């Protein structure tokens, strides 16, 4: 019989939406468990450079929320855990959770990174867009929470150096996954998004054309402790003079099975363009787009500022990308405004503004269905937008459709409100019975 842990509320996903929902519940003195599949909390946001439209550094906003959640007396974090199932159970829900193996004893590890320094194997680091290497035993990144190492067994030679150097004997090659149950009265799904797979658009090279990168990779190039600490072209380390953004590279395109708008790409492209013009003042930056969707508070003004800064906006969807001269990248598009017709342009570095696809499919895990866009279905989208088909289970952030950070945070508050109302209603009925 697996051990059972009891909480008032359960939050699935520790991205910005999940953290905010958990904090809003914990601040009302409810006991909250957060289950996160990744080894660190912080979600996609902690991996970003700066965020629109205020250009705050993403870390400046995310780290305090991460720290607040990690240290909140009412919040318990379960990182590197998979949600196996979520079912209704009496008045509440039961989640079956599997603690994945870090091969490092979580109680013992003090995050000193001795193991990491000693490990002889370099592995391409997804946290750095694959542009740099980490070791086969590692801490995800410097502001990760918790600061616990984990081992990448696929790249481990079992040389044992990490175990020998660990001051607390935390390395455990024999660790097994642990299953446990969380019982709570209510749950919030904040399972987030993934970016549109590159393979969906053959014309854009499927990731095989050098110097064509994704916007999330560009976030890393722009981030303070990015792989190169500056923006360089990955094929040969050249500082690019000309950078292009391809909008709707993973959205609004039925030919790749993503008909909907991903809502954030226009703004993040504009934001990155602004950051780039700061980092590389002499570089030409071009954004190829169909419609600029700067709809949020301050967004249109942000867009107009970018235009005024000299960032070039070209109307037209790029049709194909091909390898150009000397590591350059050639884009083919129809120039609509100057009557130029079909033309092509070469850039040193090209960024695909990929869209959002659902981060988690509830099918087989819980009795909640998804919309035609594969995001979690909501049942009262207008006046109670966080309600799902399952009683007492609410949804927040990009789990219920593409959303930017501001909207995700606000919606997380709304989900927390629904959850706390649900808790209040249960407690009242309990009282009434008593």
């Amino acid at each position, binding site marked *: 019989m697996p051990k059972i842990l009891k909480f008032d509320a359960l939050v699935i996903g520790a991205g910005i939406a999940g953290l905010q929902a958990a904090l809003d519940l914990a601040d009302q003195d409810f006991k909250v468990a957060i289950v996160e599949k990744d080894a660190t909390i912080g979600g996609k946001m902690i991996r970003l450079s700066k965020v629109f439209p205020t250009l705050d550094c993403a870390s400046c906003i995310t780290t305090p929320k991460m720290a607040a959640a990690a240290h909140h007396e009412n919040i318990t974090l379960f990182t590197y855990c998979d949600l196996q199932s979520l079912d209704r159970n009496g008045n509440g829900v039961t989640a079956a959770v599997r603690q994945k193996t870090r091969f490092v004893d979580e109680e013992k590890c003090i995050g000193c990174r001795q193991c990491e320094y000693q490990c002889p194997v370099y592995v391409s680091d997804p946290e750095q867009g694959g542009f740099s290497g980490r070791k086969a035993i590692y801490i995800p990144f410097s502001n990760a929470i918790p600061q616990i190492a984990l081992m990448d067994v696929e790249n481990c030679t079992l040389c044992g150096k990490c175990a020998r150097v660990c001051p607390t004997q935390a390395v455990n090659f024999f660790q097994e996954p642990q299953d446990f149950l969380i019982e709570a009265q209510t749950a919030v799904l904040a399972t987030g998004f993934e970016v549109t797979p590159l393979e969906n658009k053959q014309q854009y090279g499927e990731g095989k054309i050098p110097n064509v990168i994704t916007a999330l990779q560009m976030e890393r190039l722009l981030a303070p402790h990015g792989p190169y600490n500056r923006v360089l072209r990955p094929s040969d380390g050249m500082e690019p003079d000309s950078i292009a953004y391809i909008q709707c590279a993973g959205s609004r395109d*039925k*030919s790749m099975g993503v008909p909907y708008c991903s809502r954030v790409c226009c703004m993040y492209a504009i934001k990155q363009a602004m950051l780039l013009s700061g980092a590389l003042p002499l570089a030409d930056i071009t954004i190829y787009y169909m419609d600029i969707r700067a709809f949020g508070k301050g967004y249109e003004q942000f867009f107009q500022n970018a235009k005024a800064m000299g960032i070039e906006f070209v109307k*037209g*969807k790029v*049709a*194909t990308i091909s390898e150009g001269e000397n590591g350059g990248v050639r884009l083919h*598009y129809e120039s*609509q405004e100057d009557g130029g*017709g*079909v033309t092509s342009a070469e850039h040193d570095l090209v960024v695909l503004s990929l869209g959002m696809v659902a981060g988690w499919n509830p099918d087989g895990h819980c009795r909640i269905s998804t919309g035609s866009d594969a995001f979690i279905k909501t049942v009262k989208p207008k006046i109670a937008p966080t309600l799902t088909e399952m009683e007492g289970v609410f949804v927040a952030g990009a789990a219920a459709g593409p959303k930017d950070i501001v909207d995700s945070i606000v919606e997380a508050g709304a989900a927390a409100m629904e959850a706390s109302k649900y808790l209040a209603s249960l407690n009242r009925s309990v009282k009434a019975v008593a």
Partner: protein
Amino acid sequence: MALVDPEFTEELERFGVDTTLECFNCGTCAAICPLIYEHFPRKMIRYAQLGAKDRILENSDDLWRCLHCGLCTHTCPREANPGELILGLRRFVIANWRGTANV
């Protein structure tokens, strides 16, 4: 330019084309077309949307540049079927020629 004639897209339905207005003019078809020719085929599609019959007839020869290779249709983000649209316009033009010849 001439007035917009919205009836035309319905006229085109006779020639097997019913997606004329589904195109949102992103330009993918023009850029992916192996011809690399001006704004083709979007230009023709846009004229069809506007009902600019005279423009289509004036430029009708361009329609026969199309290879009917289907790349535009395959990559159209709106599934507006630009390739078939061109084919439909060819039919319209031929009917026009032949109709005119009969007069």
